[in-house]
């Protein structure tokens, strides 16, 4: 319940304030969002599996975002930022798909 409320509140705030993303953050924000989405999907799936732990969720959320950002930053420094961010998005997307498949099995029993 709390995550849904928080998500809705955050979306509302973002739409209302409509801030401009600072330039240095622009390459990292989409990656961070995808990483956080991965953590949220993982948490949702763990909840359905009955093994949810708040501590693990929080840590995985933060570390996901930080690690994804670091990878993209490193890629930027190496000159392969675009490719590495693609790689990060692909990996996280696969994980999100896997978690979504598990959630689907839980919800639809199929």
């Amino acid at each position: 319940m709390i995550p849904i409320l928080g998500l809705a509140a955050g979306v509302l705030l973002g739409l209302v304030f409509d801030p401009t993303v600072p330039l240095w953050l622009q390459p990292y924000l989409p990656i961070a969002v995808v990483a956080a989405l991965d953590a949220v999907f993982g948490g949702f799936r763990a909840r359905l599996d009955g093994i949810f732990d708040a501590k693990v969720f929080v840590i995985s959320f933060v570390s996901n975002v930080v690690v994804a950002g670091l990878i993209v930053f490193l890629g930027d420094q190496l000159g392969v930022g675009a490719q590495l961010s693609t790689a990060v998005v692909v990996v996280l997307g696969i994980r999100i798909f896997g978690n979504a498949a598990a959630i689907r099995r839980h919800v639809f029993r199929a």
Partner: protein
Amino acid sequence: MSDAPPPGTPPPGQSPAGASPADGGAAGPPARPPAAVRRRRNLVAAALIGVLTMLLGFALAVQVRNSDEAQMLAGAREEDLVRILDELASREERLRAQLAEQRAALRELGGSGSRTGTALEDARGRAEALGILNGTLPAQGPGLTLAIDDPSGEVRVSDVIDVIQELRGAGAETMQVDDVRIGLSTAVTGTAGNLRVDGTPLRSPYEFVVLGDPQGMETAMNIPGGVVQRIERRGGTVRIAQSPGLVVDALRPLDRPQYASPGPGG
């Protein structure tokens, strides 16, 4: 609100895709803390989860909004982007060249504008003055008309030259005789009764139109023992009339110096 009641014995590794540790919450506490501590911890965890998900929603909305604006370019293919970039680069180059050109022109104009303006004005004034003196421009202004009747043909070349010199000495600025403009190199030739000015025969009465100070010139003409008296002694008559507005419109070609050229220090 009952988000985080960890089950007593979690089945680790049983989930189909739970291989990665960052999956989120695939762990269970083996030892149970006291109830109060657990409750407080749950509250903190719930708050943290709320804050994190709110951040996620916020970032999501901002990012979606943001990429909306850049969507046109972000959705373009690489070749298109390269082409657009090329176009922009060449356009920038063109504009830069144009800018430099305009800047140079502006500097040139700004530097020389006032200078050429005054110089042009100066030169124009000088050319007009020289043109009037030289007889290449028509002139108008106050002055006098002077008609010499010479019925007996006794007025000589020297008399006409004297008239001209006296008039110049009295401040005449430019004049004409019988539609011949008197300039610097004007020559009076011929014999008495058959005078020529610059080759053009004069016919009595010789009519001078002179621009200058009328009063001063008339006084100079009528001076006792002057040129008018001499002409009258020869049998001619001189009629002088002052006028506030006369026109000297006879022109003479510009005398181009054949041997002299501007010297140093000019």
